[in-house]
């Protein structure tokens, strides 16, 4: 692929898109206008309504006899206008005055916690309840207050008088009236209890028993973070997708409709260059829109009170992290848009094809709006949901680096798969020329003997291995570690690579670099194998020290569980097994697939995927370093055995050290978080000697040593 050509295509697509009013509107105008108009407008409307409600006195129908004390309490409050017998039917008035109507039984104490299923209390089927319902529906009054017969006598006797408030929860002014009456009557009750305690010579608080105080400890930043964490991922991902939506249709179905796709296919371009150029343009548009959305949202949130009394205060870096988190989702969504858009015959067709995908985004995004759902090891691999939850955790300041890293790595794997799919679709010229082609033909895995692995195959192999291995590890949870390692390494690293190579008809020898290793090469690999950890684990780990929990988990893995396994078992399961299986995948199939990119880009790309496959940000640098070293060794010797020797010795030595605490003590490493510099220096010398010996190995002709 030629980056220059890719940029020419992307620049042209961007120029065209930026002259399209639809794209400009979705990308810039909508976010700038929408949030202030929608959120500020809604907020102002809400504030206005609240102000109007606050300013207006509640009109309450009073059914029953009022005591002087209660009347005085309402007068002191001044916000409730009591309208005696308003809207009361004659039968109800007579029943209450004559004492024929009785209050409903007191419901059991209503508990707030929703531990058990709670049914809302039903309105009793009585003449007074129906009458109050009718009266409230007419909207002449806001609520009905019934003071049941005997209210005054009961209070005088020291009993509990019964008052009922009837209101319509659908009408905000009715709810307001209920709140005001409740406040008045609660205050009246407190005063009454104090008076009764005093009259009977009881100490204050005797009747109350327990004063309950609850205090919200969430800071304003946390409360606003919760709110933004629920709203922002949803809006950000959706709007980012919506801005890519039109551009993707225009660059695929639109270009087909205009007949310009054929012109492009006539040019000396690789399908991958065309799709990459178009993707880059759509991605840039989507990212500009995301940026505009974030800025507009941040400014709007800073000025608006989403909840009365709560000022949104989110640190700017949270918005920056949110933007970074959108990147892989944006790759994933836009790649799918381009791939699916290519099947559409015209713009309208494209809209029909892509709208369900856009709608499909809503379901995973809704997850963020549900309280209590947080990013965990399982959800970190759920596409879209993982990033949305990661964003939420950032705004709540509860993010965990390893989980965010997992979410990013898995999203990147999904994104690469989607991009590979789009590239595959763009290889179908007949489809791009407006012909019909089945979806199944895109996934054509027919065997073509002599074919060579490509970058797409490398990405596919990595993504499959990563996602399968993760879900398999969940399925194998609770099984002994040797079983987990055996199944994961063979079933999800070795076999998928072999199956992929067989299904495509790749040459085994060149694809997996199956060649013998010379003496000098072997000697070099032994030196590298025993020394590389001093740089990887000793030096690079200082850049980003792992937390104690990860160190313990790794120790447990190296020892095959809590109970220490015999050393020979460690060498089989921790050293030999990963060395064979992972080297066949990463330095075999994946490195071969990248070979057309050139030596160092291929080695670094394969090393990076190797590092990412270890699924921990703290292990990324050391494993990336090892991946690059092993990659260079295999490239130089032309033999995957070289990588296996290095890998096995590296892992075996780690396991032996973890197993032999005596050795660690003797070496003076016990209790020290880092490897001493003297060890790093000695290890580096050994490593350099090993690399020099490998470089002396006669260059072998192979698929990767081109």
């Amino acid at each position: 692929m030629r980056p220059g050509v890719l940029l020419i295509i992307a620049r042209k697509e961007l120029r065209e898109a930026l002259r399209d009013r639809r794209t400009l509107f979705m990308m810039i105008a909508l976010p700038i206008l929408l949030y202030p108009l929608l959120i500020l407008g809604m907020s102002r409307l809400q504030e206005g309504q609240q102000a109007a409600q606050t300013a207006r006195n509640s009109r309450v129908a009073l059914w029953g006899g009022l005591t002087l004390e209660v009347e005085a309490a309402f007068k002191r409050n001044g916000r409730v206008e009591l309208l005696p017998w308003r809207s009361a039917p004659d039968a109800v008035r007579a029943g209450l005055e004559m004492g024929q109507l009785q209050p409903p039984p007191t419901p059991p104490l209503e508990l707030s916690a929703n531990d058990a299923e709670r049914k809302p209390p039903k309105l009793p089927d009585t003449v007074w309840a129906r009458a109050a319902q009718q009266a409230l529906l007419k909207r002449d009054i806001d609520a009905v207050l019934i003071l049941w017969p005997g209210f005054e006598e009961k209070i005088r006797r020291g009993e509990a008088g019964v008052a009922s408030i009837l209101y319509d929860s659908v009408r905000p002014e009715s709810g307001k009236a209920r709140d005001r009456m409740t406040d008045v009557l609660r205050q009246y009750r407190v005063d009454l209890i104090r008076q009764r305690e005093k009259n009977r010579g009881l100490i204050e608080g005797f009747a109350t028993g327990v004063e309950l105080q609850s205090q919200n400890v969430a800071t304003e930043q946390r409360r606003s973070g919760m709110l933004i964490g629920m709203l922002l991922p949803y809006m950000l991902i959706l709007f980012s997708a919506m801005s890519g939506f039109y551009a993707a249709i225009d660059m695929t179905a639109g270009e087909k409709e205009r007949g310009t796709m054929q012109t492009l296919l006539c040019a000396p371009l690789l399908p991958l260059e065309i799709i990459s150029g178009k993707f880059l343009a759509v991605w840039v548009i989507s990212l500009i829109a995301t940026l505009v959305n974030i800025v507009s949202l941040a400014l709007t949130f800073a000025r608006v009170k989403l909840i009365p009394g709560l000022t949104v205060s989110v640190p700017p870096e949270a918005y920056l992290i949110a933007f970074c988190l959108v990147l892989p989702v944006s790759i994933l969504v836009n790649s799918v848009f381009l791939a699916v858009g290519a099947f559409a015959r015209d713009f309208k067709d494209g809209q029909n094809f892509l709208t369900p995908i856009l709608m499909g985004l809503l379901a995973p995004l809704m997850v963020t709006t549900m309280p209590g759902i947080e990013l965990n090891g399982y959800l970190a691999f759920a596409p879209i949901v993982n990033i949305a939850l990661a964003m939420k955790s950032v705004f709540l300041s509860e993010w965990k680096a390893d989980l965010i890293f997992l979410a990013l790595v898995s999203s990147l794997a999904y994104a690469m798969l989607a991009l590979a799919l789009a590239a595959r679709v763009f290889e179908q010229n007949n489809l791009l020329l407006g012909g019909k082609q089945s979806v199944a033909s895109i996934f054509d895995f027919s065997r073509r003997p002599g074919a060579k692995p490509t970058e797409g195959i490398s990405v596919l192999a990595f993504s499959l291995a990563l996602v399968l291995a993760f879900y398999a590890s969940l399925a194998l949870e609770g099984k002994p570690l040797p079983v987990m390692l055996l199944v994961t390494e063979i079933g999800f690293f070795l076999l998928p690579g072999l199956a992929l190579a067989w299904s495509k008809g790749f040459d085994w020898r060149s694809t997996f670099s199956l060649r013998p290793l010379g003496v000098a090469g072997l000697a070099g690999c032994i030196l590298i194998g025993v020394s590389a950890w001093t740089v990887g684990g000793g030096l690079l780990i200082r850049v980003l020290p792992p937390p104690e929990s990860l160190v313990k988990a790794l120790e447990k893995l190296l020892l095959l569980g809590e109970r220490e396994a015999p050393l020979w078992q460690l060498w089989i399961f921790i050293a030999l097994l990963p060395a064979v299986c992972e080297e066949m995948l990463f330095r075999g199939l994946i490195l071969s697939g990248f070979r057309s990119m050139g030596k160092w880009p291929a080695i670094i790309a394969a090393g990076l995927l190797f590092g990412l496959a270890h699924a921990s940000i703290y292990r990324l640098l050391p494993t990336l370093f090892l991946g690059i070293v092993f990659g260079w060794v295999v490239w130089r010797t032309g033999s995957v055995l070289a990588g296996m020797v290095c890998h096995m010795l590296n892992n075996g030595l780690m396991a032996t050290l973890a197993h032999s605490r005596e050795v660690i003590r003797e070496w003076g490493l016990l209790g020290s978080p880092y490897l001493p510099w003297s060890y790093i220096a000695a290890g580096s010398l050994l490593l350099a000697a090993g690399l020099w010996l490998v470089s002396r190995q006669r260059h072998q002709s192979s698929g990767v040593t081109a």
Partner: protein
Amino acid sequence: MTPILEAVGLSRRFGEVHAAEDVSLKVHAGEVVGLLGPNGAGKTTILRMIAGVLEPDAGDVLLSGIHVHERPIEAKPRIGFHSGDTQLYQRLTAREALEYFGRLYGMEEARLRRRIDQLIEELEMASFATRPCSTYSAGQKQRANIARAFLHEPELLILDEPTAALDVVSGQFIVEAIRKQKAKGVAVLFSTHIMGEAEYLCDRIALFHQGRLVDEGTLAELVERSGCDNLTDAFLKRIGVARVEAA
């Protein structure tokens, strides 16, 4: 003389339909070969396979000895392709579109600018070259498209009904532009419905019917072999359709 284009045994099926069956063609430098056939004869499919945009089920296309489908990046810069139904990028000007394609074809910037100026003058595009393509008339669009096909000075021009949907004046302008390319030694493969154009432009004519090459030769050879007086009758006779005479 070695041909610029040599297509051998090209076949392509779309489901059950044989769009092209064992088609072989040669075009030499400075030669115009016309592809003549009714709708659905497979002309467009054959031209697309030769241009390298459609993979044949069988057969090879060699351009100056380069295999078009195996080495497309080397072969395609030698081809200029234009189809009569091709539109332009509506939000770009003709000059911008030409700059874009020139860069895709790897033209050096100074040469590209010179060539664009030359084509704008030759094809009389100065009045509209800096306006967005969405504002062009059919004739203007076709000139801009022809300019794009000529831009990188290809060895072979593939033109799929370039005068379709054009009025007589615009059509004649395009035909003359093609003649000038032929005079410069460019090999031209040209499909058309218009018998007059084929008679006027083509050194050799290939008659197609239902995806097959049914006859090929110079105008005189085709007419002579058919025993008819003109190309239209020769063509209709070859595809087995009787001419309907006006009463």
